[in-house]
């Protein structure tokens, strides 16, 4: 334990403490600009200069870097210290005359006007290096650094050019003492954040989330991104959130786990993905901020969304005319041939919301209105009564006009005329499609898929939740497009099927297994080679089949040269009878 005298009073300090640490701990005020508790002291702003007397020698040192050695005498308020700080604040104020933090600190040392000429009145950066250090030392993104030397020194990315390496974490803006750094989103628009998806690695999933706690997106978080995933070790990167969280609520050790479970049944409920309307260029998606998908409209009209639920254009005004186009990517041989089932009803809801929230004119381009559910048709009628203009015919093309307006062209089949409507906003009711990686799930469980990519049920009418793999069931849109009630019903059926298995406690296997006629078996072992389930073993020189392992494929039957294996329910005789039968009939 070191003892030192600060401003006449004695204090105790640990070996690894600096003078500044001791002062802060004991409420002795020392101004700092380049210091941040989360980072190593840097000693660049020199504002924490104090007088240190050691072995009778008095010198000026920075409190942030000087160790709190035993026997030191420190003066934090001496005239020499005051003079240095005053001159320094004069220099800082001349550099950055309009930064409140600097103005206030300067005033404390009696400097109210910049003593020197100001080069750039808008200068806010004092080159304290906190942003550089947080980016390089803590975040380890290494995006910004100093360039040039001496009075030309400045902060920026390499060559002071835009860089894609910036991950937009904003740590630099948080530590910057003078507010010199702004995060500017490249894509202008109403939606200061993208309509869908978070922008930072830590975010509250939704304003309506319960409980309303932030989560760390480990794919975006630098600390997690840099961890060596092979051994699960977390890199010593960033951790700014943990350093700064006063509640100590952040625990990086809480990790995703891979659980090894032995189960008897699996329900595949992998859902759907939204089809990307950029694939059909006539909808101009991406060419105007006002051409949005139905999902983006949901985000826009959500009270937790970027506009607080208001339906606004990028300039903040309300749209006067909105077009909603059905069947974008559905019922279209250039995209998906099937009907996505849900779009008609959500499009009607969107029309209702636009009318309700903005009073804008709504043009709804539909091919057929599929309001097949309970109460659906009634809702359709209600929306019509709300003054929505229903145009029967595919909305064919969306053009972005030079003035930023959007022109929707299509055919009004009822009138038999081509139609063009200029609107402020277009909502594309896009198709839903099977997840892009459904093939992996398919391979994992041995599931079939229909031509449009959805998982195949065992029978379209009789076994709608079962698959051809025993114990694996489908629920919801994994099997095909469904709206919420249908999904719930389908999932209930899948659960019931699983429960049925659980309830029985025993599994009944299919009777279609193979059997060996040991008299005829010559023990050649070809059947052992063909069996994919290792259900066949050689016992006393002859083949024997474990019926529990056998799935009844019958390949061994076809392979056995001696005709010693029989596939129950698919015996040679039965098949021959069928062959003879069908041919006799034909």
């Amino acid at each position, binding site marked *: 334990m070191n003892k030192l005298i600060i401003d006449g009073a004695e204090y105790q300090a640990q070996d690894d403490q600096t003078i500044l640490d001791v002062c802060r701990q004991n409420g002795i005020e020392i101004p700092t600009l380049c210091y941040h508790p989360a980072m190593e002291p840097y000693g660049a702003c020199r504002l924490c200069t104090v007088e240190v007397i050691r072995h009778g020698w008095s010198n000026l040192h920075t409190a942030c870097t000087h160790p709190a050695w035993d026997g030191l005498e420190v003066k934090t308020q001496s005239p020499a210290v005051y003079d240095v700080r005053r001159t320094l604040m004069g220099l800082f104020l001349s550099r950055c005359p309009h930064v409140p933090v600097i103005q206030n600190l300067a005033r404390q040392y009696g400097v109210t006007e910049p003593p020197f000429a100001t080069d750039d009145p808008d200068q806010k950066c004092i080159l304290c290096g906190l942003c550089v250090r947080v980016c390089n030392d803590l975040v380890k993104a290494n995006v910004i650094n100093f360039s040039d030397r001496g009075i030309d020194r400045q902060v920026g990315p390499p060559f002071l050019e835009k860089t894609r390496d910036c991950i937009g974490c904003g740590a630099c803006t948080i530590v910057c003492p003078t507010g010199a750094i702004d995060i500017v989103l490249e894509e202008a628009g109403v939606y200061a954040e993208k309509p869908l998806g978070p922008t930072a690695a830590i975010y509250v999933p939704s304003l309506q989330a319960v409980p309303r706690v932030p989560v760390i997106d480990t794919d975006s978080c630098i600390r997690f991104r840099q961890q060596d995933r092979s051994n699960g070790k977390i890199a010593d990167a960033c951790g700014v959130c943990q350093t700064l969280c006063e509640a100590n609520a952040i625990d990086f050790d809480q990790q995703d786990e891979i659980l090894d479970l032995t189960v008897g049944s699996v329900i595949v409920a992998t859902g759907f993905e939204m089809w990307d309307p950029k694939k059909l260029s006539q909808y101009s998606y991406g060419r105007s901020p006002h051409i949005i998908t139905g999902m983006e409209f949901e985000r826009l009209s959500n009270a937790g969304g970027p506009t607080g639920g208001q339906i606004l254009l990028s300039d903040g005004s309300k749209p006067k005319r909105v077009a909603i186009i059905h069947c974008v990517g559905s019922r279209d041989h250039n995209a998906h041939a099937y009907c996505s089932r849900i779009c008609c009803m959500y499009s009607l809801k969107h029309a209702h919301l636009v009318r309700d929230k903005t009073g804008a004119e709504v043009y709804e381009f539909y091919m057929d209105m599929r309001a097949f559910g309970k109460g659906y048709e009634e809702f359709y009628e209600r929306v019509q009564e709300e003054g929505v203009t229903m145009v029967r015919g595919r909305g064919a093309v969306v053009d972005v006009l030079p003035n930023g307006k959007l022109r929707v062209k299509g055919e009004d089949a009822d009138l038999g005329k081509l139609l063009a409507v200029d609107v402020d906003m277009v909502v594309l009711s896009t198709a839903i499609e099977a997840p892009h990686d459904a093939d992996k799930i398919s391979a994992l469980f041995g599931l079939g898929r229909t031509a449009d990519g959805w998982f195949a049920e065992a029978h379209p009418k009789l076994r709608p939740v079962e698959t051809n793999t025993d114990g694996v069931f489908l629920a919801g849109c994994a099997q095909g497009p469904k709206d919420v009630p249908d999904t719930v019903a389908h999932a209930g059926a899948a659960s019931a099927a699983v429960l049925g298995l659980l309830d029985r406690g025993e599994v009944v296997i299919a009777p279609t297994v193979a059997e060996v*006629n040991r*008299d*005829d*078996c*010559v*023990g*050649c*072992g*070809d*059947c052992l*080679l*063909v069996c994919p389930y290792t259900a066949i073993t*050689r016992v006393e*020189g002859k083949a024997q089949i474990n019926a529990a392992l056998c799935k009844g494929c019958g390949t061994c039957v076809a*392979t056995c*040269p*001696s*005709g*010693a294996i029989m596939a129950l329910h698919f015996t*040679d*005789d039965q098949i*021959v009878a069928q062959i003879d039968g069908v041919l006799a009939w034909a």
Partner: protein
Amino acid sequence: MIDEIRKIVAERLNETDDKGARLDGMVALRRTGPAVAPHVFVAGDDLSTLEINPRYPLMTVVSRLHKRLPDIRLGVVARGCDERAYVEMAKRNQIDPERLVILGFACTAEEALECYCAEPFPKNLVVGTPAAPGPQNPIVAKYDTMTLAERRAFWKQQFVKCIKCYGCRNICPECFCEACAMEDKAWVEPGFLAPPFPAFHLIRAMHMASRCIACRQCEHTCPAHIPLTVLYDLMRRDMEALLGYVPGADLAALPPLSVTLEQTPLLLGDAHDPATIPLAPIGR
């Protein structure tokens, strides 16, 4: 040559191995008056009756002895075709390689010629010098140029002679099944003679696909002189072209029809699209 074989057989029967064990016997042919028959010679036997003519599927005898007497260790006086038969039989658990010593001898050039034999000597050659391979069967040689109609005419003419005696099957060292598909009424309707074209012979051909080691016993045996080995040689040729498998060549090679594409891939065409798998040439 026969003297040398007798001498070596005598030596082998009297030899002891590292563990002091002797062979329990040597399978060979023995002259019995005007005929020859398989015989197990044991030490001290009179070997002057040991013969190597005519050709005889001795491995069938070995297989039966191995199955009947699980501890017996045998030697066998074998030709190249006997040794190839051994390979396919051992692969299918019909002979225990641990209990068999092959004493190989080379066929004569004349024999090779008669059998159209491509390899008239065993790998494990003890006596004799290898003769040059015999020529290809002339029918096989010209087969690719024959049209379907010509082929059909040829075989119909041959198969019509079949009296369904099963001699081809009975003599075949590789036909060791307990029950035979050619006798299964599901596949071959009983009561027809000659048997229906072409099912009867094709069923046997398919069964021989990965087994026929071209010993010619079936054809030699056939009382109707059906040139069965033409069919089997063509089958063997397709097998080698499509799956790279030569029956009798390698004890370690897996039976290709019983294993996956990873273990024995198709050499021609793409398994993902069977339409790409080519056929052997057909004359026009």
